[in-house]
Structure formats: C-alpha cells, structure tokens
C-alpha cells in the first residue's frame, strides 16, 4: 500500500466518525422521546471521542488523547447516566412537546446544513479537503444543536442541545492540526455543562428552561408590565 | 431757511384748516339729507366752547389719561405737517418718509387706546380693542400702498414720490389706481367714517372711536376732537399730494406757491364733498364686517404691488 491510499483511508475513517456525529445530531432533531435523545447523545459523544482519538493517532498529538478520554468518560458515560437518573428523579413526561412540528424542524435542519456547506465552500482553495469538510460537519452540528435548543421545551432536551453544540465545537477543535489548550477548553466546557445540570437539578425546573417556578413568573418577568 | 418758514406755515395751515374740513363734510351731508345744517365754521365754535368749559374726569383717571390726547394730537399734527400740501420745500418733510408717517399715526392710536383703557370702564375697553383691531388690519394695507408707490417712484420719501408724479414719467397705471382705491378705503376706516364707524353716533354698542374717548371732556376733549379733524385733513391731503399732486410747488416762486395753496384748498373742498356724498350713499356695517372691508383694501393694495412687479419683470 502506498502513502496516498493510506492517507485516503485515514480521511475516510475521520469522515466516518464526523459523519456519525452529524447523523446523531440529526437523530436528536428527529427524536421526540427523552430517553431516546439521551441515548442518541451518548452515541454522538462516543463517535466524537473516536474522531478525537483517531485524530490524535494521525497527528500523534497526545493532548487529543486526553480530550478523547474526557469525551468518552464524561459525555458518553457519566452525563447520559446522570440525565437518565435526572428525568426519573423529576418525573418529567416521557415525550417532549416540540415547538415546531418534526417535519418543519427536519427541513430547517437540512437548510442549516446547506448554509453550513455554503459558508465553507469558498475556503476550499487554500485548505486541504479534510479540514474543510470537517469544518462543514462541525458547523452543521453546532447549528443543529442550537436548533434543538430552541425547538424543544423540555429542560433536559435543551441541555442535550447545548451539549450538541459543544460536541460540534470539539469536533472542530480536534479537526484542526495541533491546536493548543484544547484540554483546558474542554475542561472549562465540562464545568459549564456540570453547572447547567446542577442548576436544573437544584432549581427544580419542572417543565422548561423559561420557567423556574410558574407562579412567581406571573409576578416577575424582569419587570412588571 | 425757507424750508423752516414753509414748515411753520404748513403746521399753522393744517391746524387751522382741520376743523373747517370736518365742518364742510358735515355741511355737505346735511344738505344731502335735505337739512340746512350748521355752518362749516361750527367746529371752531364747538372747540372753543369745549376749551372754555371746566373739564370733569373720573377719580380713577391717571396722568396718562390726560397726557394721551395731547400725545395723539401732537403726533397727528406732526404727521400732517410732513405732507407737502402746497410746496415740497419743507424742512421736516425730508426727515420722515411715508413709513414714519404711518408710524406716527400708529403712535397716536397707541396713545388714544391707552387713554381709553385708563379709566377702567367697559366702553373704553370696547373702543380701544375694536379701534386697535381695525388699525391692525389697516396698517398692512397702507404699507402695501406705500410699497407700490415706492416701487413706482423708487423711494418711500414723499418729496421724491411727488416729484416723480409731477415729473409725468408715470402714465395711467392699473397698480396706481388700485393703490388709490385701497388708500381711500383705509382712509375711511382710519377716520372712523361710515361704513366702518359713525362719527355722529352715540349708541354705545355701535361706537368704536367715540366709545374710546367717552370719558374726555373740556380741553382734553378738544384735543381729541382736534386730533380727529387733523387726521381727516391728513388723509385728504395725503391722497391729494400723491394722486393729485398738481400745483404743489417744487420751486418756491411766489405765484407757484400761491397756485399751490389755492389748488390745495380746492382739493380739500372736493375731498370733503366727495366724502360727504359717499357717507350719505351707504349704510354702516357691523363691526366684524370691517375685517372684510379692510381685507379687501389689503388685497387691492397687494394686487397693486404685484401688478407693479409684473410690469417691472416684463
């Protein structure tokens, strides 16, 4: 086997992992049941971890292994378990009422991916194909995550959306060659996620982000109208 | 030097003739009504009688009440002295142009109105307020007439205007005739003649000027009356000087002056007769119709200006 085909193979693996991440994001967009969403998120994180590890091996950058480890243990492991426990603990309804119908949401998702590709195409000239497509995938995952956040009403599903954004960012981070401080950033991120989960749990959010507690929201909405 | 002399003559002349003109008008009206009427000299007698009477006035009257007739009289006398009647060689005629003349009339009115307000009666207020309203409408009109004249003659100075008119450079102009009509209407309004006001009425609610001076008596009334007479004379001689300047001497040769004097007297007589005729012919209008009357005058004067401007443009 000559270098070239080997390189091609590398790319394919990397692609596969990243594509899985995006696919999972789409699945999250489609899935309307919380446990399903959590499992999909776990899958996405696992794929991300794989991608990170693969990149670590390709660029033989040790800190990426650390990242992969964090992703696997925290996002693919601890967080989903925690979330499962949480929804049981909050007795929250199993199905999420979405703001938009699933169909329109999917369409919007497709549109976002198209936009992402559109944004990335002009870059091609100077970059190697790998990073460009990695970038397109990461960008779409981020946008989809944001879309999830604003189309789902349930707190947990929105957390998942947020973490989906984060996965997208991490995907981009591991995609680019030799980016320093990656570990620090992912740690900082995890702190943030932890805080959010803590917040949800601590402040007893029953239904949605936008209500901590329904009856005082009437009295206070930033300011009395 | 001669200018000063003629100026003095002029002042004396106007002061002396004013009652006569009023008398003439009354006489003409009486005759037209079919009465014999008082002699034209009657006003002199009236004034003299009033002068000798003991003046009675309200306790509430302030010094201004007594001063205002004098101020009004002096202002009008001064104004009437500024109009070249028989000669243009007047010392003061060059010291004030038509605008100043109008301002002097306004000053007289200002003083009279204050006098009317002074005692603090209802009628004084009515008179002052209505008189000022009429004046407020008449003044723009007369200023527009002045515009027209100065557009034609190139100056607001009476001497120049008369000179220009006498120079014969001016033919029969639409704008001039319009200005004349406007000026006549204003003169009627300003002198409180029918149809705006009735100098002979003493029915309170129809009075304008009379209501204002209701409180005056004795020598103060003399000044008031004399001022009215002067005003009439002033307008007559103004119309005469501008629109019938014939005979006004521009160079002081004795016979020229003589002719000017005689012609001036004739002009006055004609004016008085005309006024009498006009007054007999029409009826007094309601006070608020006066605005329409004066609005018409203003419009005519404005038309005169515009015609003039168009004539200049073409």
């Amino acid at each position, binding site marked *: 086997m000559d270098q070239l085909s080997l390189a091609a193979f590398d790319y394919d693996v990397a692609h596969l992992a990243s594509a899985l991440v995006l696919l999972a994001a789409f699945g999250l967009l489609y899935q309307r049941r919380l446990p399903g969403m959590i499992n999909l998120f776990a899958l996405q994180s696992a794929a991300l971890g794989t991608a990170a590890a693969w990149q670590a091996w390709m660029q033989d950058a040790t800190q990426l292994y650390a990242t992969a480890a964090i992703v696997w243990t925290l996002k693919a492991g601890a967080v989903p378990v925690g979330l499962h426990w949480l929804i049981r603990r909050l007795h929250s309804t199993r199905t999420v009422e979405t703001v938009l119908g699933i169909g329109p949401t999917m369409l919007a998702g497709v549109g976002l991916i198209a936009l992402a590709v559109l944004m990335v195409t002009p870059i091609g000239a100077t970059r190697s194909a790998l990073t460009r497509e990695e*970038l397109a995938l990461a960008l779409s995952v981020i946008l989809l995550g944001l879309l999830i956040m604003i189309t789902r009403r349930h707190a947990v599903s929105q957390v998942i959306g947020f973490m989906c954004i984060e996965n997208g960012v991490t995907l981009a981070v591991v995609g680019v060659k030799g980016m320093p401080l990656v570990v620090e950033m992912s740690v900082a991120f995890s702190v943030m996620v932890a805080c959010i989960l803590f917040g949800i749990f601590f402040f007893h959010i029953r239904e949605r982000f936008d209500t901590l507690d329904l009856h005082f929201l009437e009295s206070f909405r930033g300011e009395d109208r | 030097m001669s200018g000063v002399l003629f100026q003095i003559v002029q002042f004396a002349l106007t002061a002396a003739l004013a009652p006569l003109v009023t008398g003439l008008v009354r006489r003409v009206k009486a005759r037209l009504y079919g009465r014999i009427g008082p002699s034209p000299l009657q006003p002199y007698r009236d004034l003299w009688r009033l002068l000798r009477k003991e003046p009675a006035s309200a306790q509430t009257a302030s010094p201004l009440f007594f001063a205002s007739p004098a101020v009004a009289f002096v202002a009008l006398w001064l104004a009437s002295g500024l109009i070249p009647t028989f000669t243009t060689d007047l010392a003061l005629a060059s010291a004030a142009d038509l605008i100043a003349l109008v301002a002097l009339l306004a000053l007289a009115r200002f003083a009279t109105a204050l006098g009317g307000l002074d005692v603090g009666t209802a009628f004084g207020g009515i008179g002052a307020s209505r008189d000022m309203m009429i004046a407020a409408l008449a003044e723009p009109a007369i200023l527009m007439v002045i515009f027209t004249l100065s557009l034609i003659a190139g100056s607001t100075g009476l001497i120049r205007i008369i000179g220009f008119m006498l120079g014969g450079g001016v033919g029969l102009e639409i704008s001039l005739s319009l200005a004349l009509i406007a000026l006549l209407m204003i003169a009627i309004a300003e002198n409180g003649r029918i149809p705006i006001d009735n100098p002979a009425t003493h029915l309170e609610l129809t009075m304008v000027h009379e209501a204002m001076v209701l409180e005056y008596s004795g020598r103060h009334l003399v000044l008031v009356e004399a001022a009215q007479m002067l005003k009439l004379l002033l307008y007559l001689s103004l119309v005469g000087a501008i629109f019938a300047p014939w005979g006004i001497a521009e160079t002081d040769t004795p016979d020229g002056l003589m002719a000017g004097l005689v012609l001036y007297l004739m002009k006055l007589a004609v004016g008085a007769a005309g006024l009498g005729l006009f007054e007999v012919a029409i009826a007094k209008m309601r006070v608020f119709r006066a605005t329409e009357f004066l609005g018409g005058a203003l419009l005519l004067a404005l038309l005169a200006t515009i015609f003039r401007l168009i004539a200049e443009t073409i």
Partner: protein
Amino acid sequence: MTVLALLLLVPTGAAVLLAFVREDTFAALLNVAACAGTFAISCALLLDRPPVTELWLVDDFNAYLIVLTTFVMTTTAVFSAGYMAREVAAGHLPRGALRVYHALYQALNGAMLLAMVANNIGLLWVAIEAATLITVVMVSLSRTRESIEAAWKYFILGSVGIALALFGTVLVYLAAQPVIGGGLEAMAWTALQARAQGFSPAVLDLAFVFLLVGYGTKVGLAPVHAWLPDAHAEGPTPVSAVLSGLLLNTALYALLRFKMVLAASGAAATPGPLMIALGLGSLLFAGLMLYRRRDLKRFFAYSSIEHMGIMTFAFGLGGVLANFAGLLHMAAHSLVKSAIFFAVGGITQLKGTRQIAGLSGITVSHPALGWGLVLAVVAIAGAPPFGIFTSEFLMVTSAFPRAPALGVPFALGLLIGLAALALRLQHIAFGAATPSTSPRAHATAVVPLYVHVGLALIAGLWLPATLAAWFGAVARLLG
C-alpha cells in the same frame, strides 16, 4: 514578567484568602486593599511595560484598559464596602453571602485582568468564560427568586454565547495555522496581527460572525442582550457597576482585537457593516426601551446597552476619528456608568425602593448625592464638558460626512436616549422629596461618585497626551 505575575497573582491570592475570612468588615477592607494593590501594580505596569511573550501582552490597547479596570474595581470596592454591609444589615443578603461575594469579587478582578493581558485567544476565551461563571453566581447572591431567574437567564444565554465564541476562536486558529504553523504562536495576538495577510478571508469572515454573536452576547448588543438588564437589575449594585463598567468593556476588547486581525488581513471586509448594524440596532432599541422602564437599575442597564451600541457603531464605522472616539467612549462610559450605579445604590438604599415612581427630589433631600447623580446622568447623556460628549462629537462629526444615511439614524438614536434620560432624571432628582431612611447620604457612595465624574470631566476637557497618543495608535490599527 514579575510585575505581570503580581498583577494576576494578587487578586487570585486575595480571592483564595477572602474565601476563608469570616469577619465581614475586615474582609471588605482586605478587598479594598487588594484592589488598591492591583491598581498600584497596574500603574507600575504603565511605567515600564513587560516584554511581549507568547502568552502575555501589554500594549497601547490594553494598558489603559488594565489601569481602568483596576481603578474602577478599587473605587467600586470602596463603594461596596459600605453598600454591602448595609445590605446585610437590612437583611437583603443571606448570612455568609459576603464571604462568597468578596472572594468572587477578587476572582472576577483576576479573570478580567487575565482576559486583558492574555496574548492568546484561547486564554482570553477561558478568562471570559470564568468571568461569566463568577458573575452568574454574584448575580444570584441575594437568593431571591428574581435574582435566581436573572442569574439563570444570564447563565444560559452567556454559555451559548461563549460556546459560539469558542467556535469562532477555533476558526481563527484554523485560518492562522497554515500560515503561522501550529502551536501557541498561531493563537497569539501579536503573531495573528503581524501575519494576517495570508489568512483565508472566508474563514475569517465566518469566524467573525461567530465571534460577533458570541462575544457580542457578553457585550450586550441587541438582539443578544437579553441577559443584561435583569442581571444588572437583580445583582447587588456593586456587581451592576462592575458589569456595566468593566465586563462589557472586556468583551468588547476581545471583539476589537479580532477586528484588528481582520483589519490587518486586509481581505476581509465584513466587520464594519455587521458591527454598524448591530451597534445602530442596539442604540435605537435600547433608547426606545428606556421609556417603559420602571426599575431604576434596569433603566440604566438599558442605557449601558445603548452605549455599547454607540461604541460598536463607532468601531464599525472605522477610521481613525471614529475609532479614537470609540476608545475614549469605552473609558468615559465605564467611569460614568459605574458612577451612576454608585449613586443609584446610594439612592435605592436611602429611599428603600428601586421603582422610579417612588423616587423623587433627591437633590432636595440629599443635595450632594442628588447633584452627583445629575452630573453623572448629564454626562452619560453626552453633555459637555465630559468625555462622552467629546467622543459623541467625534462620532457624529465623522459619521455625517462619510455616511449620512447612517449619521441621521445615529443622531436620532442619541436624541431618543437623551430625551428618555432627561425625563427620568428630572423626576428622580427634582420635585418634592420622597421620605428617606437617613438624612445623610453615605460617603462611600458619594466620594467615589465624584471621583469618577471628575475623571470623566478631565477626559472631556484635558485628555492626557500619552493617552491620546495610545488611542491614536490603536485607532490606526483598528482600521
């Protein structure tokens, strides 16, 4: 380097120390002392700048911001020493809250300074994220439901913004990496600016969009401003002062650094129009929002949004004059706005309410405080002879000839804001005095207030030459 290390270590150390101090008054004093110390250090930093390393950077741009930060932190610490004590006494704060507060105060100080002196876009990001988390906790300090909701709103929106900003940061690195090669070098401001020509404009544009929305959230630009009013209104007043006066500036600083990179790269043309759009939008939006406000602190929070919009507009407009104006505005605004919050804190404590309707006749009941407020609000409204007047003069005069279509709405926005401020100011400062708890205003509120106003006056009438020179240099770099 040592000085720089001190600058970062003193607040951090103080934070750790304060976390264990139970005695509140002593803690307050210690807090002031620590701030004063950092201020002194930053002044020393001015005198001889440390050399630029691959992690640390002190140049014309951040030097004055560092000093400004430490200074305002100091005066605010003085203010909060009196204010927070009274809050606790009044029972508005739970027991032991002050310990957390003081520790976090120093931590925030350190985080902001770190963001300023970092010569690395990643480090900057971490610092700003830390600052966000710290302020979230500070906002929720009083544990009332309102404060908790405000903190929650702040936290969620802030986190999303931060995430987007990180993606932008990664993109910038992606653009730099092929030119500079990997490693810290490719994340250092200095290197990014020096070698920006080779960067791919497409990547930079995309990056800037994310940075603008991400850090823009922290700057408080409409429509991503939503966290700001509630956080300002519900947090303790010293925190509002620091948020408005410093944290917004820090985020804007980050944004401007990136704009410098784009300007240096030459090819990328996007920043200007985007910033103008957001800036103008924020100005008009906040100006209109001012009219319906009933809560005094939220009122001035919106005024902060308005001014952030003004600055963003100026920088978006670009050109030496507008940039100079923007930089001056950053300094003047942080001075005056924090001064206003000092006054507001004093007033709300004296009158026992934050509702504008319940506040009236301060100049009658407390002349010193009242007239101080009048001066400060007049200054924030852009009246002479304060610094904000100078900057707005420069903005308007440079906006009108270059883009009348922009100058007119900009001027209109300024007017709308002025009208709203005057309306409320007259109601609060004049008229019959409402009853107050104490006849005398508290010195810890009044003295810092007048100090800030005095400095704003100097900024308007007599801008120190060196400072002007720095502004000029930075203004040129900003393109």
